[in-house]
């Protein structure tokens, strides 16, 4: 028994890697259809905000993440855009992370196409600009001072989607999807706190704890946290997609981690008594 436990404690990490692949792949290939997550107040805050905006009003979305955070942030950004287009809101996209430009463009194009929206009339993608704090500050007084043209090089001011918009103060709501810095903390410090517009965010799991204080103080109207939050949002808009499918895989992965921690410690304790 002792020899077996000693051998088990030195388990080849490649076996653990195979276990991870199996545990994550299995629910993706054969969905487990476990019980649905009930939406938390933080996620509901974003949903209720979008629901409360009258049709035709503008919302601005900043996609501040790169492909490294795609599994967590892409599904929630897609779900949010679907919701905004379903509510017939004008959607203005931008990003502060240059490697995320393609993802942002892809999300807007994909969801707009689904909803039958027209570029320039119902939505626009302004693209990336460097120096986040300066960009936000400038947008607080005059958007066109920093974004004279959209990502495709067309004049932004003449677009129908930008009608009646001069600065961030004219937005009915601002939504940010961020994986770090620059991100929501810059948007709050240089944007919403100074110019007084409503803001919400979608973050990676690792950043969620950092952003909780802003939620408690009311500086954020809501917070979509990681894939779990995205799955909750998909449930709220009644459009299950990749986040809902991914929750089973994440759940199994979490259970594997817990099981291995318990097993590792159990072996150490058992070896002390043998």
């Amino acid at each position, binding site marked *: 028994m002792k020899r077996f436990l000693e051998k088990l404690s030195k*388990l080849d990490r490649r076996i*653990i*890697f195979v*276990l*991870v692949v199996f545990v*994550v792949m299995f629910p993706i290939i054969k969905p*487990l259809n*476990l*019980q649905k*997550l009930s939406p*938390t107040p933080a996620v509901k805050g974003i949903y209720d905000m979008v629901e409360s905006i009258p049709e035709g009003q503008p919302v601005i979305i900043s996609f501040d993440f790169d*492909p*490294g*955070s*795609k*599994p967590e942030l892409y599904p929630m950004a897609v779900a949010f855009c679907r919701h905004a287009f379903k509510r017939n809101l004008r959607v203005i996209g931008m990003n502060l992370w240059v*490697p995320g*430009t*393609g*993802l942002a*463009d*892809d999300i807007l*194009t994909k969801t707009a196409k689904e909803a039958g929206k027209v570029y320039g009339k119902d939505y626009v993608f302004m*693209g990336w*600009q*460097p*120096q986040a*704090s*300066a*960009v936000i*500050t*400038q947008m607080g007084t*005059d958007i066109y*001072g*920093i974004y004279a043209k959209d*990502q*495709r*090089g067309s004049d932004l001011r003449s677009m129908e989607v930008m009608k009646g918009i001069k600065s961030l103060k004219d937005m009915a709501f601002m939504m940010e999807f961020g994986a770090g810095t620059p991100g929501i903390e810059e948007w709050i410090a240089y944007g919403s706190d*100074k110019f007084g517009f409503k803001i919400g965010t979608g973050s990676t799991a690792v950043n*969620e*704890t*950092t952003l*909780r*204080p802003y939620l*408690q103080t009311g500086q954020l109207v809501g917070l979509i946290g990681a894939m*779990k939050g995205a799955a909750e949002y998909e449930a709220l808009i009644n459009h299950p997609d990749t986040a809902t499918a991914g*929750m*089973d895989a994440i*759940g*199994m*992965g*979490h*259970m*594997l*981690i*817990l099981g*291995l*921690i318990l097993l*590792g*410690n159990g072996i150490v304790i058992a070896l002390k008594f043998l």
Partner: protein
Amino acid sequence: MTFLKRQVPMLICLVVGIATIFQYYVPHPVSNSYLESLSKAVLIIGGFALLLGIISLFIPHMGRIRRKADGWGYSVIMFIGFLIGLVPGIFSMASQVTPEGGMTSFGWMYSFFLSPLQSTMFAMIAFFIVSCSFRAFRIKTLEAFVLFLSAFILLAGRVPIGQMVFDKLFAFANVTISQVVEWIMGVPVVSARRGIMIGIALGAIAMSIKIIVGIERQYLGGKD
């Protein structure tokens, strides 16, 4: 020369620093105009900084290739990677979609090169986390036990399978694991985070004041 190198930059720093602090609290058109001009100046400087960064990246890598230093091949790969990003980017005017909705060469490079590579790098972490959870996470002290307990509750409480198992096991306690998770995230986590944030903010304020009044002069380069 010392006057131009030392006193003038310090005077600019003092005046601009104080003016920017006051600007935040003065809702006047002149104040807004000042902020706009300052933001534009920062953007222009940022553009030059980007160019400077690229040059700083190139110089040591070119030196490594010229000297055939250890691992010089990686420097060649760096230049190839740079060109793979730059050339399609210039030809596509940094746009990933054509006006007709098709994919440009830059879009192709982004979708089939950069995006999967970055995602793969990030996904690799999962394997090492799971491996470490078995090998390195040993509950030897009370602090390690508290860390394990909170990790256990958070990991289990944030996924449907965990909620299902624990809510059934602890049904007698009349409290769900989601409620416990919300309490952990809303009370101890927020308290700790707020403490850290206040500490960082105080440090940043102190450092900013030192730079504005000229006590901290490292940004000028050299000694003193």
